[in-house]
């Protein structure tokens, strides 16, 4: 197994310096994510204005994969519309899906498809136990978006 494909520089950077930890400027929608098996936790707040996520606040505790995924996600979704986020989420999950052939989520030609830093997480797919860690922030996001409706 290629550990260095998993523990990339950018992942460790987001793990150690998570972005968007400051509280929201105004009350928004909240969701908690929790992986009871490994104890990863995420607490997410978002502000949705006119279908666009204008602010994100995310704090958590857990492994490098869950926390870096959360941090990278917070950057990727800020300023995006619901539709764009849905697209992004789909691509991210496809990237994590062991059943998907190749780098299905990563085709840079498809509009708005580039996952950016998040692509660093593609190594996780080779470590199936850890996929849940990478997905945690995203499932929590879906919940928060539901709340915000």
């Amino acid at each position, binding site marked *: *197994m290629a550990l260095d494909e998993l523990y990339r520089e950018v992942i*460790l950077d987001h793990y*150690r310096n998570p972005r968007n930890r400051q509280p929201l400027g105004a009350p928004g929608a909240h969701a908690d994510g929790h992986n009871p*098996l490994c104890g990863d936790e995420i607490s997410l707040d978002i502000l949705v204005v006119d279908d666009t996520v204008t602010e994100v606040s995310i704090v958590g*505790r857990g*492994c*490098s*994969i869950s926390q870096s995924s959360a941090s990278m996600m917070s950057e990727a979704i800020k300023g995006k519309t619901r539709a764009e986020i849905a697209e992004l989420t789909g691509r991210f999950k496809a990237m994590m899906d062991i059943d998907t052939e190749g780098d299905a989520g990563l085709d840079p030609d498809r509009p708005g498809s580039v996952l950016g830093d998040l692509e660093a997480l593609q190594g996780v797919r080779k470590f199936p136990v*850890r996929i849940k860690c990478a997905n945690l922030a995203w499932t929590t996001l879906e919940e928060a978006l539901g709340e915000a409706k």
Partner: protein
Amino acid sequence: MTNLSHLRRDFPILRREVEGHPVIFLDSAASAQKPIPVLDAMDRFYRSQYANVHRGAYRLSQEATELYEDARRRVARFINAGSPDEIIFTKGTTTALNGLSSSWGYDHLEAGDRIVLSMMEHHANVVPWQLVAKRTGAELVYVPLTTGYDIDLDALRSTIDSRVKIVSLTGMSNVLGTIPPMQQISDIVRAQSEAVLIVDGAQLVPHVEVDVQTLGADFLAFSAHKMLGPTGIGVLWGKPELLEEMEPWEGGGEMISTVDLYESTWAPVPQKFEAGTPPIAEAIGLAAAVHYLEEIGMNAIRSHDLDLTEYALHRLGEVPDLVQYGPTDIKSRGGVVSFTLGDVHPHDIATILDSRGISVRAGHHCAKPLMADLGVTATARASFHVYNGRDDVDALIEGLHEARSLFGLSEG
């Protein structure tokens, strides 16, 4: 130093490779691997003597019943019970403790009564008591740990009084390795209350010779799968006079004497507590595991554990940024070592070790109250059984160095 490396050949799984590395199994505290004699005993039984027990007037059923009752006798001897009737087969430690809480607990607790636990209990010895406390109005009280990671006996002394009806403690912590001084604890409990003392022996019984005549407990629970036996079976031992008085926690076949439409009466102990078809092949597998442990000798196992633990503590001590959780006095602990490594999350440690074929556990180890007490959310944990050796510890240490380097932790 006790060398048990010749036993490795009895464990087929150790011949398997994971990603080009031979399996190095350091998670026996979660569940131990099984030697061939255990697997063969079950397989042979299914192939040549299988039938349901107790109810058949034919040869196969009689043979199955004898093997099942032989297993009870063997387990009784293993922990020096006064009689095989003191051995109740359950699904595992968890079911044994739940049975106790919902039968003994429910029948003996009322509002204002107290149940005393320690701060280092496994969820199996926490949640059942929360449930019965809620139903009865009894109260849970936790005895804190000393800075040396053992039960604080002074705190215990000031906690035990006549309100305490149940004291339920681990015989060996699955996180810290701590083996609390049960006889001393028992003396305190007896002197200051009429509480029953329950020992969660899930970790203790697979590793340390236990004699229920001197243990000082009223009940003892343990699981086969952690003592080289199969899944699906565990044991509740109890003092005969307590089992006698206790109501069954399940009703059904084999546990009855008479069944009328609206009332039933119970069979004698232990049948009273074994409703339904029991884990028959599993009992036979457990007996084979007990036999296997006895052949090695529990004393040899204990000194093997001590040797490995001492070596592991020593080698782990050399790894920068590593923090160990557990007693430093080797005599009061078993072969379980928990640690954290700088800001490398235990889950990441486990993944890195796994890529080298090494299985360790990472997480809260079903001991969230303890984790909160230690101020961590998770630890990594390596634990040993007879098939481990110093070479496994060496491999672990190498893996931890790789983890440090992958996470860019600086030397010194």
